[in-house]
C-alpha cells in the first residue's frame, strides 16, 4: 500500500545546519525520503533528533542548507511570496505547542477567517463564512457561537489543538504535517485529538506526516515509519516491518521504552 500512490513529497540529501563555527549544529543530516499521496507517515525520534527542523523545511518555513525537496515529483519552487502562498495551499501544519501557536492579540475568529481567505473565500457573504466556521468548529466538537469574541488563551490546551484541526478542516490541504500534536496536551484530551485527526484524514484523504517520539503511537496510526536519530533516518519501511522486525539498535531501544512505561504504571496501581 505504501508505494501505490503518486509521489507527493520527496527529498534527497536534505540537510540543515544552524549557526557556524563553535555554534554549528547539524540538525538534519542528508536525509532521503519519499512520501506518497494519501499515505500516513510517522517520523519517530527522541527529542532533539531534528524532527521539527525537518518539518519546518518541508513546510518551507526555514531554508534548506543542502539537498533538494520535490513536491509532486517536481523540484519545489518557493522563491517568491506568491509561490510560497500557493505552496501553503497544499501543505499545512499543526504545531506541538498550542500555547505559542496563536497570536494572543487576535481573537479566534481571525484565525478561522484567515483560512477561508487563503482558500479564496474572502469575498463570500458573512453568513456563508459563519456557516463554514460553525461547520469547522462542530467537526471538532467546539461551539462556534461560544468561541467568537474569545481569545485563544481563554481556551484549554486541548481546545486550542482542536481549533487547529478545525483550521485544517477549512483549509483542506493535500499534505498535513502534525508535529507532536498531542505531546503538550493533558492525557485525557490526547485520544480525542488523535481521533479528530484521523477522522479528518479519512474524510479528506490527505497525506499525513505524523511526527512523534512515541513509537507505539506511530505503529497505531501510520502506514510508513521513518526512524530519526541525530538528524539521520536510520531505518524506514512499513510500520509492521520496522516495528515488528527492527534492525537498528536505536529502533529496538525506542520500542523497548514503550512497554517499560506500562510496566511501571502496572506496578504502581497494584
Amino acid at each position, binding site marked *: 500500500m505504501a508505494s501505490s500512490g503518486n509521489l507527493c513529497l520527496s527529498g534527497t540529501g536534505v540537510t540543515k545546519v544552524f549557526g557556524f563555527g563553535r555554534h554549528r549544529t547539524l540538525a538534519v543530516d542528508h536525509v532521503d525520503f519519499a512520501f506518497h499521496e494519501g499515505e500516513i507517515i510517522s517520523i519517530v525520534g527522541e527529542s532533539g533528533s531534528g524532527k521539527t527542523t525537518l518539518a*519546518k523545511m518541508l*513546510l518551507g*518555513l526555514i531554508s534548506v542548507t543542502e539537498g533538494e525537496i520535490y513536491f509532486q515529483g517536481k523540484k519545489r519552487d518557493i522563491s517568491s*511570496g506568491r509561490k*510560497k*502562498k500557493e505552496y*501553503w*495551499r497544499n501543505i*499545512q*501544519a499543526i*504545531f*506541538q*505547542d498550542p500555547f*505559542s*501557536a*496563536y*497570536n*494572543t*492579540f*487576535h481573537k479566534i475568529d481571525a*484565525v478561522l477567517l*484567515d*483560512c477561508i*481567505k*487563503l482558500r479564496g473565500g474572502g469575498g463570500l457573504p458573512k453568513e456563508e463564512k459563519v456557516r463554514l466556521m460553525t461547520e469547522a468548529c462542530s467537526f471538532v466538537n467546539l461551539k462556534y457561537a461560544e468561541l467568537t469574541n474569545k481569545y485563544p488563551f481563554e481556551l484549554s490546551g486541548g481546545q486550542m489543538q482542536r481549533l487547529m484541526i478545525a483550521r485544517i478542516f477549512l483549509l483542506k490541504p493535500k499534505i498535513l504535517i502534525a508535529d507532536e500534536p498531542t505531546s503538550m496536551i493533558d492525557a485525557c484530551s490526547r485520544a480525542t485529538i488523535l481521533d479528530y485527526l484521523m477522522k479528518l484524514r479519512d474524510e479528506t484523504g490527505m497525506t499525513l506526516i505524523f511526527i512523534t517520539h512515541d513509537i507505539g503511537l506511530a505503529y497505531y496510526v501510520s502506514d510508513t515509519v521513518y526512524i530519526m536519530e541525530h538528524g539521520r533516518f536510520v531505518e524506514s519501511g512499513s510500520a509492521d516491518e520496522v516495528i515488528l522486525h527492527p534492525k537498528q539498535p536505536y529502533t529496538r531501544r525506542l520500542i523497548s521504552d514503550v512497554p517499560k512505561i506500562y510496566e511501571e504504571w502496572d506496578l504502581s496501581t497494584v
Partner: protein
Amino acid sequence: MKHTLNQVFHSGKFLVGFTILMTVLVIVFVYPLIVRTPPLQIIGQGTFFPPGIYVSTYDAINAPTVYTLNLPDAEARRIANRLTQEDRIAMKEWLVAFGVPEEEIDIDDTAQLLAQWEANYDPNLRLPGMTFARHRYFQRVNASIDGLLSTEGAIIAARNPETGELTEKSIVKQTDFANVNDIANVRILTLGTDNFGRDVTTQLVAAAGVSLLIGLVAGLIATTIGLVLGLMAGYIGGVVDDVIMFVTNLFTVIPTFVLLILISFSIGQDRRGAVTIAIVIGFTSWVWTARAVRSQVFSLRNRDHVNLSKLSGHPLPRIIFADILPYIASYVVMAFILQISSGILAEAGLSILGLGPRTTETPTLGLMMNWAMIYQAHILGKWWAYMPVLLTIALITFSMNLMNTGLDQVFNPALRD
C-alpha cells in the same frame, strides 16, 4: 489591550510618575498664559537678585492712602533689620581694639552700644593690623546704622528744574504704612534673577518645556531608528543583520557622549538650535533600543504563531505589524520613555560643556546650568540660579523612570509584587 491599559493605570509607581510629569506639563503650558514676559527678557540691573517680593519704593511712597499703624515691635524690628548680631559683635571688636574696656560694652543694649560707637568711631582711622576689607566693612556698618535711633521722619523733597531749589513735599514717618494692594508695581520673583538679571522662574518654566521637547524629539528619533534597525536585523537576519550589527557595534564602542560632543562641536554654535540638538541626540542614542529589539524579534520570529501566520499566507508587513510589533510594543514604549529622560540629561550635559543649543533664543535646563556655572552661582551661594534647575531635571527624569518601573511591573509578571 484595554485590560493592559487598565493595569497600567492601577500601578502605583506609574501613576505617581505620570502625575508628576502631567503636573510639569500643565505648568509648562499654563504659566506662559499668566506671566507674559518673554523668558529671556532682562529685568534686573545687576546679578543674582535673591528670591522674594519686589515692591517699588517710589510707588510705595506715592501710594494713594497712607495708613498709620502703631506697632509696639516696629522699632526693634527696624534695628534688627539693619544691625545684625554679627554687626554688634564686630562693633564690640572695634571698640575693644580702640581701647574701650571690654566689660563696659553690652552688645544687647542697643542704645548704649550705639552711643559708645557714636562717641568713639572714626571712619578715617584704620586700626593697626586691620585689613583693608575689614576697614571697609566697618565703614559700611557705620553708614547703615546712621540715624537708626532717630524718631524723625524722612523728608520727601522735589527739585525745581529751573532754580534747583528743593521743596518739601511730604514726610514719611516711622509709623506710616502702605497697603501692598495700593502699590502700582509689585513683582514676585519666586526664584530671584540670574546672572543677567532675568527672572529665573519664567526662564525655568520655558526651559522645562524646551527640554521636554528636546527629550521627546530625541526619544522619537532614537526609538524609531532603533525599532526599524532592530526589526530589520532581527527579522531579516543574514547579511542585513551583519551590516546592522556592525554599525551598532561601532556606535557601542565609541562612547555616545563623545560622539555627541564631536558632532555638536562640528555643527557650530550658529546652527545649533534646540531641535538640531535634539536630532543629534536622537541619532546617537538608538543603539540600545536596536540591540534589544533585535534580540526580542530574533526569538519571536521562530515562534509558532509567526509560522502559523506565514502558513496562513500573510505578507511580510502584516506579519511584522500584527505578529511581531504587538509583542514588543510594551518594551518599545518603555525604551521610549527612557530615551526621553536620557535625551533631557544629554542636552543638559552638552549645554554644561557649552555645546548646547545657541543661547539667544530659548533657555533649556542645560543652558541654565551652564550660565549658573559660568557666573559661579555655586561658589557665590546663589542657590536659586541652579538648585531649581537641578531639581527640575531630577524630577522629570525621576517621574519617567518611575513610569518605566511601573510599566515594567505590569508587562513583566515576574516583577509584580
